[in-house]
């Protein structure tokens, strides 16, 4: 709660001063020497500090990738844990340079809130988790249930719409922080837990008996999760956008963290241009970075597939399938415009 108020206060008071410099986020970032990245306060697989206090996760790797592109060093990131409520004010006020926090891209956020999104790093949808003991097989059986939900999310709105559209009754139990929602669900304060399905898989791991809970098959919304930046700084927006595309493009080329240096000797002009070894390439410098920007990104975090598998994929406790997040060449939606 403190954090909301704090960033809200910063939003009102400092908005004038902090974002006065926002026209050139790249210069700010370079002067500071690190990227200030807004992440989740703790969502296993997406953003969570490990036992040594190092942030790890899918969204965290996007912060690292941007740092690698700018500095050639993926460690030059400072993290600001944000709640669902504090995240937007933090970005608006200039407290953070980049928001990589499983945030749904909506037109309202793109326009009225003054943010820019361009690529989706994770295609998600909202789902429901219930204790097995309730014997619920479908979300349509949930009439009369108490539903735990996080405040200030698209989830909260979809929930209201879904139950209204299906003429079901429910009682919302709303908390600001994820930890509080988890505690309330565990304590039996509500019957149902709703958030993005990826989040449910992650949260189920944190329950005392994960096997006692099932995730219902219904997906009631489109939740394209995307990193966000402030409007009005196209240069920074381009850097963040193409960092994301570079990860996908690298997977498409088959460039991984291990074969990266071999790939530099590739004869494929596309790959040579991408890695900045082609003569007279200006892709990196046009972005305001160096020509080995993509090389640095892959060296820092690997390609999209590696980021996915390392944090949330089949070999992690979350065991999430690629599904919609497979490359377009493999039936998924992940697609990068040509890097040329």
């Amino acid at each position, binding site marked *: 709660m403190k954090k909301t108020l704090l960033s809200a206060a910063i939003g009102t008071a400092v908005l004038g001063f902090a974002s006065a410099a926002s026209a050139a986020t790249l210069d700010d970032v370079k002067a500071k020497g690190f990227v200030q990245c807004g992440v989740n306060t703790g969502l296993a697989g997406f953003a969570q500090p490990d036992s040594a206090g190092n942030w790890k996760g899918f969204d965290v790797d996007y912060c690292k990738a941007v740092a690698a592109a700018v500095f050639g060093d993926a460690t030059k990131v400072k993290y600001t844990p944000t709640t669902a409520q504090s995240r937007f004010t933090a970005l608006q006020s200039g407290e953070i340079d980049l928001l990589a926090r499983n945030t749904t891209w909506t037109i309202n956020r793109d326009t009225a809130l003054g943010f820019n999104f361009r690529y989706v790093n994770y295609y998600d949808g909202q789902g429901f988790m219930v204790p097995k003991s309730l014997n619920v097989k479908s979300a349509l059986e949930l009439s009369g249930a108490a539903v735990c939900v996080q*405040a200030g999310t698209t989830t909260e709105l979809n929930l209201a719409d879904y139950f209204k559209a299906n003429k079901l009754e429910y009682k919302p139990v709303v908390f600001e922080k994820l930890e509080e929602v988890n505690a309330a669900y565990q304590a039996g304060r509500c019957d149902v837990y709703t958030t993005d399905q990826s989040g449910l898989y992650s949260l189920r791991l944190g329950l005392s008996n994960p096997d006692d809970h099932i995730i219902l098959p219904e997906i009631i919304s489109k939740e394209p999760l995307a990193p966000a930046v402030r409007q009005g700084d196209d240069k920074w927006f381009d850097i963040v956008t193409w960092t994301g595309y570079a990860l996908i493009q690298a997977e498409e080329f088959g460039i991984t963290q291990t074969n990266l240096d071999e790939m530099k000797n590739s004869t494929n002009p596309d790959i040579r241009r991408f890695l900045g070894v082609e003569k007279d390439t200006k892709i990196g410098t046009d972005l305001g970075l160096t020509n080995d920007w993509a090389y640095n990104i892959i060296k820092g975090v690997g390609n999209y597939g590696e980021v996915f598998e390392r944090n949330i994929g089949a070999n992690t406790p979350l065991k999430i399938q690629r599904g919609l997040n497979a490359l377009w060449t493999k039936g998924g939606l992940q697609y990068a415009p040509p890097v040329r």
Partner: protein
Amino acid sequence: MTDHAIRVSSHKGEPRVSPIYDPKVRSIFFQILTAVIVVLVTWSISHNVSVNLARANIASGYSFLAGRSGFDIGFAMISYSSDSTYGDALLVGLINTILVAITGIFTATIIGFMIGIGRLSRNWLIAKLCTVYVEVFRNIPPLLVIFFWYSGVLSSLPQVRDSLNLPFSMFLNNRGLAFPKPLWGDGAYLILVAFLVAVIATLAIAMWAKQRQMRTGKQFHTIWAGAGLIVGLPLLTFLALGAPLSFDYPIAGRFNLSGGSVIAPEFVALYLALSFYTAAFIAEIIRAGIRGVAKGQSEASFALGLQPSTTTRLVVIPQAMRIIIPPLTSQYLNLTKNSSLGVAIGFPELVSTGGTTMNQTGQAVEVISIWLVVYLTISIVTSLFMNWFNAKMALVER
């Protein structure tokens, strides 16, 4: 500086001094300077904000309040759904804030009085218990007290499917206390009218009894007469109307109890936490107030032959109230403002519904300004009332 000015004037033998050394001129100059600085800073901040909002393409203004909110609220005293407006959502939050503030102030005052008087008790155990109470609650941050009550309420109560069945079709579980909802029939408003008439009549009797006691010294049992009126008159009306009352009973559904009214555990936890926390401070104020009345007052009262209870009621408390009321006002204000901590346990008070509104609309500046104005208004109204009460209780010099 003043010394210097005086010396200059006495040396020259004339009353006028240079304007630089004139305290009046100086004071006016610095006041103007302060005012100009305040205005400039305010203007530059608001100008900066509006310029930056415009540059970031963030819409501003209060028109968003009329938009459809799209989210539901679990605990609303007025009818509210996701089709209601953001303005309604804020209103629901405001009413919840006021509800928890008023009930909390009421309970905190009662507990505070008992603990405060208890600390002065000659009974060793009672005095020590009250001391422990005050020291414990006064030294814990209010947020922790709220978490304590919330997890206490949640973990100690049974799951919804093992609800405790209480008398009168009431159910208690970790989703709250469900009780039958009264449904009033035709003409039920007459019962309220009867109640008001009884209250007014009781006040009139009290005034008459006081005057008679002043005149003749005879006492009248106002309390019994008043209680009879206040209970009896509405009851008679109720029976005369043919008991126009039915109940909507809570029934166990598949997931939850349906029907009836429910007091949510979030409300109970916040209400108890604020009451117990603030009561510790009120207890100390009460103790200070009573201690502040000179011992000679009660000794003089005993010498006149008054009973100890009468002495407390007529001599000590009225004088103690003068010491108690001003700091009591700040405790009431604290309780009201601390109710904003309810956001941490998901109680939908003003900061909670406002926060959601802010997040869905991105109107941070506007929502925060609404918060400021509302809390300021509530606090000022409370202060005005307590100042009026204080003036009434203050020593009337004859």
